[in-house]
């Protein structure tokens, strides 16, 4: 199995997997990209040869995926966390029947954390001397199930959102209770600015709550026609990009308070909502995935975005850049996956 070159778009390679693509990630060393699927598979694709190796780490849906060095971590609705090496070899790191592993976040020095309902599992790096996985420390319980989990401040802070606000933990965690930041109502999708100053969380009632941890204030960004499913900060940490609209929505969080509630919408799409937004790790570029499987590339500085290609499916379900920013990977709810080589695209 391999990704095939798309005749229409230079540098674009595609494959149909036949299952909901729940997440994608690219390894830090640039060697492999991985796609987690709703049927429990994780597909590993060699970035150079485009050869695909299928693994089956989960019985059920693989709900989340992230790169951990050259390998990949996945969590599933079977309560398992599995480390899959680039070779395809898998190591089960955790198992808890009847629970879901919904979010994973990698911190510094190989530490990572997983969200399992109201618990956060904090893992130390590596395997123990006898090759067995190390036992995680359980943090929490949170007031409600984690709607999102991410790291900030160079991997020194772990942030989770839930009913009633946020909980922050340092890495490695000094207390299992963490530091609570209270805010009413539910909080789902989550993003933190790289410096850890801002945290933004989508609420169930079509708004985004911003927490300014430096100024210790919070406020709501409103006016969305539908619930926001994706949030991301650009590499500068100043601009928040969100879905919830038939366009990319951009908020300037450093704007003076009186102008704070003014959004800029660009990359308008007539036929559906923005489902995934992925800012480039180093440039003002961004990728945006809409309903209908349409992938846009854009420029957050110039406030423009245009459609580049369309995948089969009702919506784009995931997008991720390689750490060096050369490759973009993504997938759709109907099982399409792609890998885009930006250098090949730019040359053409």
């Amino acid at each position, binding site marked *: 199995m391999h990704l095939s070159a798309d005749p229409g778009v230079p540098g674009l390679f595609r494959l149909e997997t036949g299952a909901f693509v*729940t997440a994608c990630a690219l390894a830090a060393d640039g060697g492999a990209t991985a796609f987690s699927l709703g*049927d429990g598979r994780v597909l590993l694709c060699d970035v150079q040869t485009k050869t695909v190796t299928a693994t089956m780490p989960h019985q059920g849906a693989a709900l989340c995926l992230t790169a951990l060095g050259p390998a990949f971590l996945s969590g599933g609705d079977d309560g398992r966390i599995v480390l899959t090496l680039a070779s395809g070899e898998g190591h089960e790191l955790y198992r808890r029947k*009847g629970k879901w592993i919904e979010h994973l976040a990698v911190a510094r020095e190989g530490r990572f954390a997983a969200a399992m309902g109201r618990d956060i599992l904090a893992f130390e790096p590596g395997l123990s001397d006898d090759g067995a996985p190390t036992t995680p420390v359980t943090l929490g319980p949170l007031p409600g199930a984690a709607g999102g989990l991410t790291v900030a401040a160079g991997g020194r802070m772990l942030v989770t959102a839930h009913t009633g606000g946020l909980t922050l933990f340092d890495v490695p965690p000094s207390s299992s209770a963490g530091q609570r930041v209270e805010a009413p*109502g*539910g909080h789902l999708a989550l993003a933190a600015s790289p410096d850890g100053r801002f945290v933004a969380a989508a609420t*169930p009632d079509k708004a985004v709550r911003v927490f300014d941890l430096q100024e210790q204030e919070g406020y709501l960004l409103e006016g969305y026609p539908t619930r926001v499913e994706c949030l991301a900060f650009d590499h500068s940490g100043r601009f928040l990009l969100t879905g919830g609209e038939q366009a990319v929505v951009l908020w300037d969080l450093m704007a003076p308070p009186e102008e704070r509630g003014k959004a800029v919408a660009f990359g308008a799409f007539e036929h559906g909502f923005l489902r995934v937004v992925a800012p480039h790790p180093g440039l003002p570029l961004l990728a945006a995935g809409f309903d209908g499987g349409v992938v846009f590339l854009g420029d957050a500085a110039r406030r423009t975005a245009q459609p580049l290609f369309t995948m089969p499916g009702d919506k784009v379900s995931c997008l991720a850049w390689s750490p060096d920013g050369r490759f973009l990977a993504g997938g759709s709810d109907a099982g399409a996956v792609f890998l885009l080589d930006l250098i090949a695209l730019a040359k053409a």
Partner: protein
Amino acid sequence: MAQIPVTVLTGYLGAGKTTLLQRILSENHGRRFAVVVNEFGEIGIDSDLVVDAEEEVYSMNNGCVCCSVRGDLIRILSGLVKRRDLDGILLETTGLADPSPIIQTFFMDDAVRDATLLDAVVTVLDALHFPGQAASRSEALEQVVYADLLILNKADLVDEARLAAVEAQVRRLNPQADIVRSVRGDVPLETILGRNSFDLSRLLFLSPALMDAPSAGQHDADVSSVSLTLDQPVDARRFQEHLGAYLAERGGDIYRCKGIVHAAGQPQRLVFQGVHMLLETTWGVPWKDGEERLTRAVFIGRNLNADELRAGLAACAA
């Protein structure tokens, strides 16, 4: 992608929800269900597809005091639809759960609405103990008023006269639901699943029992139902404005409402359903030639004023 049907199973403690659930799962139907429960560990269901949901109810910041959703369901249903091996989702509530945030989640959340379909609210009642529960616990009444299907379980434990009395009692509370009797949850699967109770586009007529019900229900702890019939055509715009305004004001007391409206000059039925202040109206199936065109509606709620409702509808006549 096709929407996955979700059946909500509710009922007071000990009514027989779990027995019914086990029966659905053990039947040889070749279908694959995920089961969402609120009391994990207490139910003896051995399935890999049991999901433990901890109720997270929060009110919506939309100026509607009675609008609340179940955040845990938004999360769990969006997770379940990622696996595409499911034929349905069965959602078992706790015995004390209020079903309205569950229903409102399906009305309010776009992602849940896109990916899943609320098939029906099925309420299991203990034929022996329901009259006592209804007298003392508001939850027992709420579970009846939100139901599309009422299963009168443990029917073998009471005699026919008492069974008929319980039936009459729940019929007064909820004239639009179907009522079936059962012993240890022995209800055919096709009665429970695939009901499409919330699909307005298919609504042809309201439950026949509705029309037989007394026009103003008798009172059980202030909960009652009001059935309305109007044989004059209705001005569609005026009616929609009236209904919207009525629910905005009184929605806190309205558990459910549903109706088919004969809109003047329109070949199609105007159909509506509401849960508290949330209202959905759409143009439904066209009237057939020679079919009697009547406007019929039912309101179930607290402290309903039948005269006020009737006058409000009459004022919308074209």
